């Protein structure tokens, strides 16, 4: 008999022997294994749910605080600052020129934010580099006019009650995509309670299906 065959034979006997003797050991091992499984499962699930979003998003403060309530009271409505241009395109966040319709180099209010605005931006004629919570990826075409004018929707349906905020919450930027957290929604599971909680493609499609009877075609938004 060759050495190899010997080894093979011995090996098989050993393993067979261990197999019978190992059943009791297995039980203990399985018990520990279950505990390890549960511990690892809970730890990873919690880190995937609680820690992961903290790692995925970086928080950025807006250049200075903006009080929507104060401005909406003065201006009367959203459209004064967030308007449609003649060609139907949307102005988005107003440019400095629009701000200067009311503001000037004389500080209007008493807040520190107003002072920052005037000193850093108005005086230097520099646009305020706002972070836009609701900016969609560049691959998405979206027409505000089609929704608000033709569809008769209000701002709140998609933007929520931002007009009632008195301060600017931090902007959370996805480190991978570079886009705002508001697109996926605050809830990391993607669960939403309100129509404005999440703005993914499925949300567009669901609303289109409900309102128009069809979810729409690819090229309508991805041109």
């Amino acid at each position, binding site marked *: 008999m060759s050495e190899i065959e010997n080894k093979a034979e011995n090996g098989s006997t050993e393993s067979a022997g261990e197999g019978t003797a190992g059943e009791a*050991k*297995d039980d*203990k*091992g*399985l*018990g*520990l*294994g*279950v*505990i*390890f*499984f*549960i*511990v*690892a*499962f*809970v*730890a*990873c*699930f*919690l*880190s*995937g*749910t609680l820690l*992961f979003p903290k790692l*995925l998003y970086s928080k950025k403060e807006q250049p200075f605080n903006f009080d929507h309530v104060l401005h909406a009271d003065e201006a009367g409505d959203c459209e004064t600052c967030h308007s449609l*241009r003649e*060609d139907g*395109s949307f*102005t*988005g966040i107003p*440019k400095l020129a629009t701000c200067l319709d009311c503001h000037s180099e004389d500080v209007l209010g008493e807040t520190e934010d107003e002072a920052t605005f005037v000193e850093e931006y108005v005086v230097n004629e520099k646009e305020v580099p706002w972070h836009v919570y609701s900016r969609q*990826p*560049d*691959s998405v075409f979206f027409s505000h006019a089609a929704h608000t004018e033709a569809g008769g929707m209000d701002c709140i349906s998609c933007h929520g009650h931002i007009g009632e905020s008195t301060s600017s919450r931090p902007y959370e930027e*996805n480190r*991978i*995509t*570079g*886009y705002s957290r508001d697109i*996926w929604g605050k809830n*990391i*599971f*993607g669960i939403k309670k309100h129509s404005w909680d999440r703005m993914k493609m499925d949300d567009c499609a669901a609303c289109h299906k409900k309102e128009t009877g069809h979810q729409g075609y690819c090229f309508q938004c991805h041109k």
Partner: protein
Amino acid sequence: MKVDRRSFLGLGIGAVAGIAVSPMGMKLTDDSSIWTQNWPWTPVPVDGEVTYESSVCSLCPGSCGISIRKIDGRPVKIEGLAEYPVNYGGACLHGIAGLQYLYDPARVKTPLKKNGDKFEEISWDDAIAIIAGKLADIRKSNSPEKLACIVDKEQGSVSGLFKRLLKTFGSPNFYTMPSLESYLELTAEALHGEGQTIAFDLENASFVLSFGAGIIEGWGSPVNCFKANASRKERKAKLYQIEPRLSNTAANADKWIPIKPGTEADLALGICAVILEKKLFDSTATTNFKGGLNKFGALLQKDYTPSKTAEITGVKASDIEKIATLFAKAKMPVAVFGKGRGDGAQSLKELAAVHTLNCLVGNINKKGGAFVQPKFKYLEFADEVMDSIADKGFAKTKTGNYVNQLIEKLNASSQPVVEALFVYNANPCHSLHDPKTIKQAIGKIPFVVNFSSFLDETAMEADIILPSHTFIERLEDVPSSAGLAKSVVGLTKPVIEPVFNTKNPGDAIILIAKALEGNVAQSFEWETYEECLEGMAGEIWDSLSEDGFAIISEEVPSESVPVNISFLANNPATVQAQGDFELTLIPIDNMRLISAGVSVSPFAIKTVSDKVLKGKDIVVDINPLTARGFKDGDYAMLTTPKGTVTVILSMNEGIMPGVIGMVEGLGHTFDNKYVSNKGINVNDLIGPVIESGSGLDAAFGIKAKISKA
């Protein structure tokens, strides 16, 4: 309990299951897909307010109205301007790529001064001071005529300011580059008298007899010509194209008449002979002829009979008679000159002979014919303030009549005949024949100032560069000039803040003039070029600034003009191609390339076919009968008396046997990776041949041979 590998297995499975159940996997998948669809390194156009501004393109003499689309004030696209009375909404590929010139890698970003072989940056103040100092020295030495200037065109306020600066300084040496405009004026001067120019009413003509004019290859005002040609079928008008190669225009014509290169003048005279012989001419029109119509007729009957003309030109005698009859009997015939784009070398004999056809059939100043009228003037310059030095200097004779003569004088003399040279919007070191001798001549001038926006071949030779705004950044009046039937002035407007530390050339001249003090400064009393233009434009300023253009005249001129036939009656010699080789190399104009002024844009050069430029190698057209022993696509050595280059042969039955066609506008050597070092500059292979009598460089080509590479 013992921790064994199964425990760890439990740990691993638990971890995987935990992650799998958490939203992490789903979220990362989603994010990575978004990431891959929006690569962060791919530039994305910034969103913003869309506005349109109208202006005028001044890349070529075509002067088309353009509409510039801007996003939040940044120009992003150029389109044709629908209401502009030259191009009516059309635009060519060079115009739509015009924004690329703003960010061209060869742009001069700030004034430069040559130090040894290199340029160093200097301030505007220092540059102006250096120029004023040098010019003052020249003036002090009592030879102000030694300041010369080469610009692209005669018309327009910027050229006017250069001319004014020279005159008040005391120099008559103001030169323009050869252009269709200059040839039109020259022909008009030879046949009708000084101060006149010629235009062709292609939009209405019923029979266009084109002597090589590339009507859809950039001749005249290109977009206007495209439109006139496009409407030809509807108007049932005919186009006969006479040239050695089946160009796009020839392919589009009703008939292509192949002709031996350089014999176009002979064919035109042969047609004149048939018209006179068969009495097909307009007898009222011939009463305006002076200078020896009989002598001219006798010459034609002797030397230009159909059979003799056929022998010279290679066009059948029966065809010559047929063309003459069709042309003379057409309702609105017009004969058009200016081979290719019309700005290359031409002989006055050819220009005059072709235009004599128009004069003979009596279509001068008639709808669909040729318009002869005074050069249009729309700017009112106040009188110059002259001092004795200026008067004396300005009264001296010009060093040469044309740029090529100036170059010749410079090279012939051991003493500098020119002490200082200004160059604006011209690149003679690339676009004139034999650039090597041009560089040599410019090198002899002690002080050269270039106002170019780009560090092109000629700017490289300068001592000081005062960079100009591009046409996107500057204010300028742009007169229509290139043979257009109506006279329109457009206003190029700045649509963006200057990208670099450049100036409007008009402002730069005013600064130089002010620094020179004395009578020169007194002649330039404007604070800015804008003030100057507004003042000079006078009555038309309102419509220029409000509508963007002013139509000076669009009516058919009514005057009857005299025709002086003496130049042709004296039987001027036909220019022959230089050299003893068997073949003839001719330059070809291609709409996708630019051969004068600015160089082609990165976008436009990418549109050139690989039958013209393959990789970095130039492709030449040759008839398979001429290139026996070669296959299509073979490399070959092309030799002319000026040098030898390697080319790729394209077998083309659409070119006459014995002729090689090489495109113009390639072979740039300056620092622009998109445009330079591609192909060969055909001008490197052709030397100037001066036409006796006119002094023009009339080298239509050069003798050449090919051999195995």
